[in-house]
């Protein structure tokens, strides 16, 4: 320390200091002159005159003095800080058990928070990785029934040409498909491909790393052009720069690679290649092909609201011009960010953020609790320091320094934990939860978050204990022996009450989400074929130009695979249970009932299957018949409906009835009329569908497509072992190997993926709730053990006076029961109030679920019993004689 404490204890205002100093100077001078024989009056005048302009001198000195004081204050502050830090480190090193528990607790809390912050940052805070993302909007068509319909290419073109508020509008198909790429070695492989319109890269502001993106000219020329991803270029083409301008054989035709875009670029869905779909000179019927997800870039000086009004007016004009297709169709704009992140992910992020926030609060409470206990032990030390002249503020500052040091160590460890969590996170996060352009990274923002959190946390959990630790009477603290001071008891109990309440709240949330997971996993899927394996078969269109050729190919493959040993059944389907993508479905009318308007017809899912589908999935036909050899392409158009569909006949048998079906996206199209020949058992389309979904099955021979799922049921055991022989069987039929087989999964895998979001949420929240419970119980154990230790003599006296072991144990348990009971009561009330907040994430369980309430209470009871056990046994073992002798 540079400056002695003494100079500070005597500090007086600068003015006074200067006056006194100068007065003394004059006096000394005067005396000396008098001693030399000068007249006292003259001597004083002489001495004074030597100071010159006194006022000016004083001003200079005051100025310098003030600056000096300011400098000294800063220096002193840093000196004290250094002193406090050194002292804090010594204190913490002197109590290693306390330091370890406290820093680990904080590290867990901060680590969990930093990982979740990374998720929130990536999904909610960070802008999309496109140029000027604020100007980007997702554009939907709306009808009375659907708030978000995909857009027809002709409507999109008209929005673009007639709207005045947009720089550019473009679209892409919402699903990623695949193209079969013929390799140089003769092997075909499937490359994921998304269709886009020419302007998409311009709208999003994506600059290619090589070549160019699509131009208006490509569109007019209807050129076969693709842009590929950097990743594909590097892995498949070894970063060959001459790829630009070269032609690739894709799905049998030649496509020119015009450019390569950076790896980070993705739309919705993960794709390696973007193929241009021309939209110039489309036939008028394309007006009702609602196929595009549309993105627009609003002009910089225009608000989204104004843009919506502008395009709304355009849409109203189109509705008048094309009433057949466009009547009642409006437009809705959403910020592209909101649209791409999606409400489900936003809610999940917020849920996790809330949960880890509570965990962090519990961590703080626990550390505050530890500090309070320590403060009691350190009471005498603090009293002595106070007696030696340290002010209360000074001591509080010292104690706060200690807690901030703890928090900083905890924060450093926590950021390591956060980095570790983020390192393993990609394998834990279910596919499809995060949009492809969102990546979780551990970066400077996360570190900054940890630093800020650590400082805040250090202050939050430090203030209360520091305040309490310094409010004591000196004589009492120094004079008393520490055992009789039961300081902070109530504050500590209240902290634990709060911890228990928060833990109960989190347990309750975890319970609801686990019940949701059980609901979506435990339902009756309708079929019994978990081991069935499925793969997407994608024969090259050019090789099987006619339906007959394609049908023949499918039949031959089916026969060949059926002959493979270990295969029980083989079938085809264009969609699989639990894996329907939202293609819009078909609208239907029952022939013979009064016709319905375009927007009034009920919607059904439409699934194309081969006759063996029902036996392969062990999906019972509950009425009528299944498909068979009669249902050829040239036969009577037939269909099988599911139970939910059958209910639209209101009790009458649907068998023999006819329905007319139209794709929901083109209500004007000519309907297919099909006779219902059977009713199949209900299966689930999605694990959390709010009501049974309506489904119609159509025989494959009457609706051929050139990529279809092949489903194979093994006679027993593991279907994946069959994959090589199935592939061989296919290649025996198609000797040129231009069939691409991909997406090999079992139905069990599909079901697992379908419930992934629910599982992820439930498992995450349950893990955090378990952590919260553990921390709360550690807190409870802490105060009980401490109280027992403080009251050993008290218990000893009671025993000596005839209290039984049971009596004293009851005292401890009553103490604990009060804390747990109050905490649980508060927690359950909070849970009852807060359950509704996560209602949108629940399925098959109500926010006020009684079972969950009961389960949470049981879990809490068991955990509490475990943490009471130790202290209670300690009490039971107290020997009155020993307890009294030691006191």
């Amino acid at each position, binding site marked *: 320390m540079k400056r002695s404490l003494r100079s500070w204890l005597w500090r007086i205002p600068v003015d006074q200091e*200067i006056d006194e100093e100068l007065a003394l100077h004059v006096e000394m001078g005067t005396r000396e002159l008098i001693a030399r024989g000068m007249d006292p009056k003259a001597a004083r005048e002489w001495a004074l005159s030597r100071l010159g302009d006194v006022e000016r*001198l004083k001003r200079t000195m005051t100025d310098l003095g003030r600056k000096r004081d300011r400098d000294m204050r800063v220096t002193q502050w840093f000196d004290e800080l250094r002193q406090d830090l050194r002292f804090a480190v010594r204190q913490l090193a002197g109590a290693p058990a306390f330091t370890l528990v406290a820093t680990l607790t904080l590290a867990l809390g901060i680590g969990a928070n930093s990982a979740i912050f990374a998720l929130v940052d990536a999904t909610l805070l960070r802008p999309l990785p496109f140029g000027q993302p604020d100007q980007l909007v997702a554009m939907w068509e709306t009808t009375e029934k659907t708030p978000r319909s995909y857009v027809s290419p002709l409507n999109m073109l008209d929005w673009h040409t007639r709207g005045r508020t947009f720089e550019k509008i473009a679209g892409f198909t919402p699903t990623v498909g695949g193209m079969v790429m013929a390799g140089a070695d003769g092997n075909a492989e499937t490359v994921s491909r998304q269709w886009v319109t020419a302007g998409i890269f311009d709208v999003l502001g994506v600059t290619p790393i090589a070549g160019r993106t699509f131009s208006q000219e490509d569109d007019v020329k209807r050129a076969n052009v693709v842009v590929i991803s950097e990743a594909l270029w590097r892995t498949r083409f070894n970063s060959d720069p001459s790829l630009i301008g070269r032609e690739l054989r894709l799905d049998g035709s030649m496509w020119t690679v015009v450019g390569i875009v950076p790896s980070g670029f993705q739309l919705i869905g993960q794709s390696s290649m973007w193929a241009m779909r021309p939209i110039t000179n489309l036939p008028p019927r394309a007006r009702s092909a609602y196929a595009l997800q549309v993105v627009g870039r609003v002009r910089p000086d225009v608000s989204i609201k104004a843009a919506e009004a502008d395009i709304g007016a355009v849409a109203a004009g189109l509705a008048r011009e094309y009433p057949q297709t466009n009547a009642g169709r409006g437009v809705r704009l959403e910020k592209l960010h909101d649209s791409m992140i999606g409400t489900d992910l936003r809610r999940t992020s917020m849920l996790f953020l809330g949960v880890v926030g509570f965990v962090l609060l519990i961590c703080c409470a626990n550390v505050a609790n530890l500090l309070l206990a320590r403060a009691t032990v350190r009471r005498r030390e603090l009293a002595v320091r106070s007696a030696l002249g340290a002010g209360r503020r000074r001591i509080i500052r010292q104690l706060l320094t200690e807690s901030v040091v703890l928090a900083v160590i905890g924060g450093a460890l926590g950021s390591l934990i956060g980095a570790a969590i983020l390192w393993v996170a990609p394998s834990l996060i279910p596919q499809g939860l995060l949009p492809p352009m969102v990546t979780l990274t551990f970066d400077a923002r996360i570190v900054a978050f940890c630093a800020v959190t650590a400082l805040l946390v250090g202050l939050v959990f430090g203030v209360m204990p520091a305040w309490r630790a310094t409010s004591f009477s000196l004589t009492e603290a120094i004079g008393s022996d520490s055992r009789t001071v039961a300081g902070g008891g109530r504050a500590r109990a209240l902290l634990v009450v709060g911890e228990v309440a928060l833990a109960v709240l989190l347990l309750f949330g975890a319970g609801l989400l686990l019940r949701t997971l059980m609901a979506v996993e435990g339902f009756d899927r309708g079929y019994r074929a978990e081991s069935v394996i499925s793969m997407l078969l994608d024969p090259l269109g050019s090789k099987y130009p006619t339906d007959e050729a394609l049908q023949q190919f499918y039949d031959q493959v089916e026969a060949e695979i059926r002959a493979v040993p270990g295969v029980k059944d083989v079938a085809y389907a264009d969609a699989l249970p639990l894996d329907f993508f939202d293609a819009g479905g078909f609208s239907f009318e029952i022939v013979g009932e009064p016709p319905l308007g375009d927007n009034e017809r009920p919607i059904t899912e439409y699934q194309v299957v081969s006759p063996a589908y029902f036996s392969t999935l062990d999906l019972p036909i509950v009425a009528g018949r299944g498909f068979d050899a009669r249902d050829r392409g040239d036969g009577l158009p037939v269909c099988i409906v599911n139970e939910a569909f059958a209910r639209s006949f209101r009790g009458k048998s649907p068998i023999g009835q006819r329905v007319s079906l139209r794709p929901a996206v083109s209500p004007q199209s000519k309907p297919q009329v099909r006779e219902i020949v059977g009713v199949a058992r209900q299966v689930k389309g999605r694990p959390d569908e709010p009501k049974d979904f309506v489904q119609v099955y159509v025989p494959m021979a009457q609706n051929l497509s050139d990529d279809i799922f092949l489903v194979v049921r093994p006679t027993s055991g593991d279907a994946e072992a069959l994959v090589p022989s199935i592939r061989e069987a296919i290649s025996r039929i198609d000797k040129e190997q231009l069939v691409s087989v991909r997406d090999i999964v079992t139905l069990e895998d599909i079901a697992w993926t379908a419930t992934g979001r629910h599982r992820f949420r439930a498992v995450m929240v349950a893990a955090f709730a378990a952590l919260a419970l553990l921390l709360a119980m550690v807190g409870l154990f802490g105060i009980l053990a401490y109280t027992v230790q403080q009251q050993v003599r008290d218990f000893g006296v009671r025993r000596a006076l005839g209290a039984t072991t049971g009596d004293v144990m009851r005292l401890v348990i009553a103490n604990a029961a009060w804390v747990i009971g109050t905490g649980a009561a508060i927690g359950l009330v909070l849970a009852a109030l807060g359950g509704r907040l996560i209602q949108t994430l629940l399925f098959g369980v109500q926010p006020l679920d009684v079972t969950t309430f009961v389960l949470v209470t049981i879990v809490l009871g068991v955990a509490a019993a475990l943490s009471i056990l130790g202290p209670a046994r300690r009490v039971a073992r107290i020997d009155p004689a020993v307890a009294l002798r030691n006191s």
Partner: protein
Amino acid sequence: MSKPSNALLHGALDALILKTLARGPNHGYAIGRYIEETSGDAVLVEEGSLYPALYRLERRGWLEAEWGTSELGRRAKLYRLTDAGRDQLAAETAMWRRFSAGVSKVLLST
């Protein structure tokens, strides 16, 4: 009293104060008198320079002040050399030695 030209010494006042205090803590008046007497009245210390210099040195941490008692029994602000001040004194002394040797070589050469 005539005022000798002491512009040259003005910058050296700091060093003289530090040197004076190296003998022990003292108040402003005594510091000034000591310098004048020791220099055989060759150096005149003006109050208008002395006190600002003291405050400046205090600010730089070369001196520290404390309240003590003067010979008159009155409360007096006593200045004391700090460790940093001692280092500074050594540095200034060395510099002065080089400076004066150099000046002498030039001025007193024949």
